[in-house]
């Protein structure tokens, strides 16, 4: 199996995730697109680890999974706070730092 097959699939997931981050206006959907990006990175890490016959790629993929879980927790807590204050989470309307 070719290495570049996995890398092209990871690049596709990454670019679809970037498109989602740029286009979506709901905060939770932006976080979902960020999860796509992180999964693309994981696929890259594991593919290169398998290519070099080393498990370090898998170890770093585990770290990325743990960090992604922590980030989703905090990100959703922040989105909840925004929702409580404004009753909607259209990111286009959150354009002032003054609360």
């Amino acid at each position, binding site marked *: *199996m*070719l*290495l570049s097959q*996995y*890398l*092209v*699939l990871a*690049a*596709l*997931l*990454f670019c*679809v*995730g*970037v*498109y*989602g981050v*740029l*286009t*979506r*206006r*709901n*905060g*939770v*959907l932006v*976080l*979902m*697109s960020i*999860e*796509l990006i992180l*999964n693309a990175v*994981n*696929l890259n890490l*594991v593919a290169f*680890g*398998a*290519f070099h*016959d080393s*498990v370090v*790629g*898998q*170890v770093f*993929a*585990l*770290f990325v*999974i*743990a960090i992604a*879980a*922590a980030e*989703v*927790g*905090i990100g*959703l*807590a*922040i*989105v*909840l*706070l925004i*929702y409580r204050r404004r*009753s909607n989470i*259209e990111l286009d309307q959150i354009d002032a730092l003054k609360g």
Partner: protein
Amino acid sequence: MFQQAAFYLFATVVALAAWRVVTAKDMTRAALALVVVLAGMAPLFILMAAEFVAVVQILVYVGAVIILFLFGLMLTRSGKTSPVDRSTSLLAGAVSAGFFAVLVFAVVDAFGYAEVAPSTIGTTARVGDVLLRQHVIAFEAISVLLLAALVGSIVLARRD
């Protein structure tokens, strides 16, 4: 080859579901498409003999992260659908398509016909060995990070 067929099957499923995540108007459909993406990554990891990462992917991502997303969608419900904004989506599509073209060119130019032939002997034991020997500091730091994220999200989200 059976592995090639399996790769193309799961790659197609993951790519189509990822497209649905970013284009679905119904937010719940987008979350369910994300479940398909996250669950479809696990067979791809198994194809590369990374069985521990595949199982952790299912446990953590499909088992916890997507539940968090569904709760987040439920608690911040301000309408069933999220409309797509035409003006930014064309430019965003051009940017991501251009970036994809650059990445594919770089990958194919650098790695061409390199083969992946991972050794399939006991990678979980090897992962545990490397994780808890060479990378034990990062492992402990991740534990502290998870504790900080746990405390932080509870403090942020509680009602008082």
